[in-house]
């Protein structure tokens, strides 16, 4: 009998998404994950599937409530930093409306979405990658598959929904806290009147801008979930790969957030 090597058989891969085809396979998995989750959400809306409420609640807690103190503190600190920097500019240029307008615009359109994205990546994204990797390493994915359960729907479905919801909420909350901190700083130091601050807020954004500002963190959350799924799955059955999956998810998510932001800016602003 000819040996498998003689008849040109390939090795069964020990770890997926490695080698030259890895990128293509990863993108393919991301597409399947997205399709699988969207199908699940449509089925839930139509009453043909149930949302795994305990898993959804756990994901909300993990990607939301547990991050809230940190994100509030960071937003307040960033607001104070911006307030101080704006104070310096206002001391050089006596154009408070223009300066406040540009600061407000930068905070809502760029700073907050990226900040929220990075914090969600660090908490929920890494947790999702580790969970996926651990499920694979422990053979739990095999148990799900053998039971006819789609592991992607089972793990990513509730988590992605929680991440989208929390990213939206965080975008609103972080903007409010950042503005409040920046306003307090400027009010105390250079006596910027509240009316001027609110006027700058009102004039800074068109409805399209606000839509973009809300959509961006949700786009980032989607990217983070897909990157975490790819890296978690790529861990294969090697226990040492669990930590690697977490690291790769964090680095990949931050890079993807910045690149996606650039793409959105180029597409929207031209």
């Amino acid at each position, binding site marked *: *009998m000819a*040996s*498998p*090597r003689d*008849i040109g*058989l*390939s*090795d*069964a891969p*020990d770890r997926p998404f490695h080698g030259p085809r890895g990128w293509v396979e990863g993108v393919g998995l991301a597409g399947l994950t997205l399709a699988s989750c969207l199908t699940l959400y449509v089925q839930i809306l139509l009453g043909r599937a149930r949302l795994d409420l305990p*898993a959804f609640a756990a994901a909300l807690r993990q990607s939301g409530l547990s991050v809230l103190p940190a994100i509030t503190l960071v937003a307040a600190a960033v607001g104070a930093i911006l307030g101080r920097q704006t104070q310096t500019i206002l001391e050089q240029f006596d154009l408070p409306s223009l300066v406040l307008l540009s600061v407000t615009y930068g905070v809502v359109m760029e700073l907050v979405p990226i900040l929220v994205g990075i914090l969600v990546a660090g908490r929920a994204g890494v947790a999702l990658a580790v969970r996926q990797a651990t*499920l694979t390493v*422990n*053979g*739990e994915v*095999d*148990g*799900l*598959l*053998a*039971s*006819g*359960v*789609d592991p992607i729907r089972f793990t990513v479905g509730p988590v992605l929904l929680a991440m989208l919801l929390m990213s939206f909420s965080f975008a609103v909350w972080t903007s409010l806290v950042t503005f409040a901190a920046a306003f307090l700083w400027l009010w105390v130091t250079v006596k910027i009147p509240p009316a001027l601050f609110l006027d700058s807020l009102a004039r800074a954004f068109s409805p399209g801008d606000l839509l973009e500002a809300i959509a961006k963190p949700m786009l980032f959350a989607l990217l983070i979930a897909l990157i975490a799924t790819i890296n978690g799955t790529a861990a294969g059955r090697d226990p040492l790969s669990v930590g690697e999956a977490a690291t790769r998810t964090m680095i990949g998510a931050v890079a993807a957030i910045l690149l996606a932001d650039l793409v959105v800016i180029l597409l929207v602003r031209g």
Partner: protein
Amino acid sequence: MSVDKPAALELAGVFQHVGGRAALAGIDLSVASGEWLLLAGPNGAGKSLLTRLILGLDTPSAGTIRVLGQDIQSLGWGAMARLRARVGAVLQGGSLVASLNVLENLLLPLRGLPGGRDRLAREARLAMTVLQLDGMENLRPRSLSLGQRRRVELARALIHRPELLVWDGLTDGLDPAAARDTLQVLRAQRESRKLTLIATDNDPDVLGDACDRVAVLERGRLVFTGTPAELETALPQRLDLRYLLRGRA
């Protein structure tokens, strides 16, 4: 094979190549519906790898695998999920989901099947009673002993009344009494409906007189297939089989 006994499993020229060597080399095997087959052989012979291929958890390097009449390599996710609803699996090393309790693990194969949650939970509790798992429904797998985890896995594999049960490592983690009880449960399933069983173990006698056929694997090759009586007859002449199965020449 007779016409009235369709094959539950057909393997034709199945190869699996792992780490530069043929872990399975040209496996041809057919299991009739209702038949009980024991895959025996020493550690590393390829038994677990073969069960993973049968369950569609891995893809073979070459060859064809037909489970309950369907070529599993040609099936999409939906068709594969429907096929899996007809197959039960107990995997070596355990496959219970750690974040779910025993009852939730048992309900996994029933997701997507008709019936209210209460009815499905009742079925799960019945399966737990049969396998002496009463009172454990709220425990997480890590709180259970290895033997209890194996019984939960068996309950999960049987709860959706599969036509084919694939069990890797039949006596792993089970003491002799638990192994006897488990075999009793399987016999009852066989009597109440036509359950096909493909089990793996190092011991070719583990299924006793319930076994219809034994297939012996060594280094990825099938070196014997026949009834337990034929195996006993072959052993005096087959030094290699005696060494593989009895640990002595």
